[in-house]
């Protein structure tokens, strides 16, 4: 990696990239393949915290996310400020989105249609899966067209999972994830610890370790500790990026600006820049994550080969989405979710923790707000009725979905304070009035400003966003 000091950033640069998370890294990877001669400056707020440092310190970053924004909402938000962004803290779950996720409005009258389709992303989904060495089942194409060519074989399912697969082969799958099922050079196979934000075996994909071909690319110079404050734009052109470091302000002229800060900080940068077309910051949200436990009679769980072993996808799409959010069910093989079963005695493993993700509707009143201070404020009313209705239906359906198991009891445990996914605050669309970037992720007015990352997602979907974010960024980089 070629690190430079703030006073070495004067340029000129062909490309200034803000942030170094999923959006930025995957974009740069494909962009630099087409434009190897471009000079790129990566401005990253956080430090380069190596994976060893993260393990030793038991944290992903020395900058706690809560110190970077104020939160006026009943729920919390989570992300990593640091080189590699969310590729550090993420848990590595990588389902594709369903083709109908891109047509929510036209099919079910909710939210907004995406200006791109599943077909547009197919090739890049495949590419992203290869880059991250995703492990997954070869029958995934039953659900997602073209899926199933995973570079790594699926992880072993637990005993309850195998019963569920036999009962519902077309909707129940071993879970695709960026955790190795087979060791590769320098990285062990997943050992099913379940502490994936801090993976001790390096089985999980980390940008800083596994995308060194971007960080080490001779075209890329990296300045860490550089918090971008605003983009200096005139009319339809971004002229420079202004960042602060060590209490000083620096101005970097740029031909092209790629904004890859996260879903809270990217809109705040636009707000502070006075680039407020399409209402940046509005519509921030995320899907919901809840936990139920299925208590089993005589069947033992936790014998799978990774922390989340399987997924039931039967309700990720369908007419129910007109009323409440779509959902999936994850089979959790880690007892870090809710522990082993303690009563009655000696039935420790007769429980299946099931994590349910439910799509939520993104609403205009939920927003990242610039109050004139140094930090953005997030104002959010909490999960909407749409998500709550989806959750209720998902819980009601548990006995049906898991009918192949000897169910003794089903207990709802909790809604997690956050799903750790920031979405919707700089959404993409065809209408300048209701979206910030166009279908090519270029700002509607400032034409040399591109936004990457999950902030451009027009809807939350039920699916974890990072694989889709990676595929979109690869597509952008190779078509630009």
């Amino acid at each position: 990696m070629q690190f430079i000091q703030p006073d070495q950033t004067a340029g000129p640069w062909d490309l200034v990239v803000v942030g170094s998370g999923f959006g930025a890294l995957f974009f740069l990877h494909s962009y630099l393949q087409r434009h190897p001669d471009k000079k790129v400056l990566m401005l990253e707020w956080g430090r380069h915290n190596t994976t060893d440092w993260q393990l030793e310190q038991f944290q992903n970053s020395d900058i706690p996310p809560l110190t970077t924004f104020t939160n006026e909402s009943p729920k919390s938000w989570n992300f990593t400020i640091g080189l590699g962004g969310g590729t550090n803290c993420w848990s590595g779950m990588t389902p594709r989105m369903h083709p109908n996720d891109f047509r929510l409005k036209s099919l079910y009258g909710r939210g907004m249609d995406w200006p791109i389709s599943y077909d547009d992303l197919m090739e890049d989904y495949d590419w992203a899966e290869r880059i991250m060495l995703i492990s997954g089942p070869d029958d995934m194409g039953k659900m997602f067209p073209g899926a199933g060519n995973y570079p790594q074989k699926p992880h072993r399912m637990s005993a309850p999972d195998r019963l569920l697969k036999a009962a519902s082969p077309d909707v129940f799958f071993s879970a695709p994830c960026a955790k190795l099922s087979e060791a590769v050079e320098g990285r062990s196979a997943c050992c099913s610890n379940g502490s994936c934000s801090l993976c001790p075996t390096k089985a999980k994909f980390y940008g800083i370790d596994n995308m060194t071909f971007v960080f080490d690319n001779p075209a890329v110079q990296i300045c860490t500790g550089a918090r971008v404050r605003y983009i200096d734009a005139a009319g339809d052109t971004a002229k420079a990026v202004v960042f602060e470091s060590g209490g000083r302000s620096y101005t970097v002229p740029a031909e092209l600006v790629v904004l890859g800060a996260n879903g809270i900080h990217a809109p705040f940068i636009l707000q502070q820049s006075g680039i407020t077309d399409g209402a940046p910051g509005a519509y921030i949200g995320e899907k919901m994550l809840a936990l139920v436990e299925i208590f089993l009679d005589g069947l033992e769980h936790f014998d799978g080969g990774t922390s989340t072993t399987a997924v039931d996808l039967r309700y990720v799409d369908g007419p129910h989405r007109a009323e409440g959010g779509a959902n999936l069910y994850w089979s959790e093989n880690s007892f870090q979710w809710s522990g082993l079963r303690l009563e009655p005695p000696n039935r420790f493993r007769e429980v299946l923790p099931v994590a349910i993700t439910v799509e939520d509707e993104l609403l205009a009143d939920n927003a990242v707000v610039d109050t004139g201070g140094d930090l953005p404020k997030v104002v959010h009313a909490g999960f909407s009725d749409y998500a709550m209705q989806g959750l209720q239906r998902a819980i009601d359906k548990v006995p049906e979905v898991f009918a192949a198991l000897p169910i003794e009891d089903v207990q709802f445990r909790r809604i997690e304070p956050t799903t750790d996914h920031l979405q919707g605050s700089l959404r993409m669309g065809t209408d300048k009035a209701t979206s910030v970037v166009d279908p090519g992720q270029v700002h509607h007015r400032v034409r040399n400003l591109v936004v990457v990352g999950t902030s451009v997602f027009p809807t939350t979907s039920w699916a974890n966003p990072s694989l889709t974010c990676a595929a979109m960024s690869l597509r952008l980089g190779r078509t630009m």
Partner: protein
Amino acid sequence: MSRRRLPRPSRRQFLAGTAAVGVAATGGAAWMLTDDPKDFIVAMIRRSVPYVEFEPGAIEEFAASYYDKVQVQRRGNIEKISKMARGIGMPLTETVLDGNEKYENFRRTTVSTFLIGTDFFDETRDTTKPVAYFGINPCGRNPFAEFA
């Protein structure tokens, strides 16, 4: 790979076993709650798996290192519960907290973390001896995992 099925005592056997352990243990200081919140963790673990005999000092050693590692905010919560338990006793504290998701989650994950730091689930262990504690694996290893 096959695994030994753990014995499953009936509810009556469970209660009888609990009583026996209780009687044996009441003579010792282990049930006494001091103003050290780690004592509460010890008592909570004992009461969650009263039918398991651990090596002397095993739970205490775990509680000390576990408490050391929990987040500051969580520590505050443990201190609060511990204070309540000192005031009204463990049984009543458990009754008050019955159905409290945060406490139940804390209890089960803590007891699980302790158990997997011992040889309790080791199928080759000498079951005539008390269960030995080895230490917390920071990543919480899964002793039941099997691989493809």
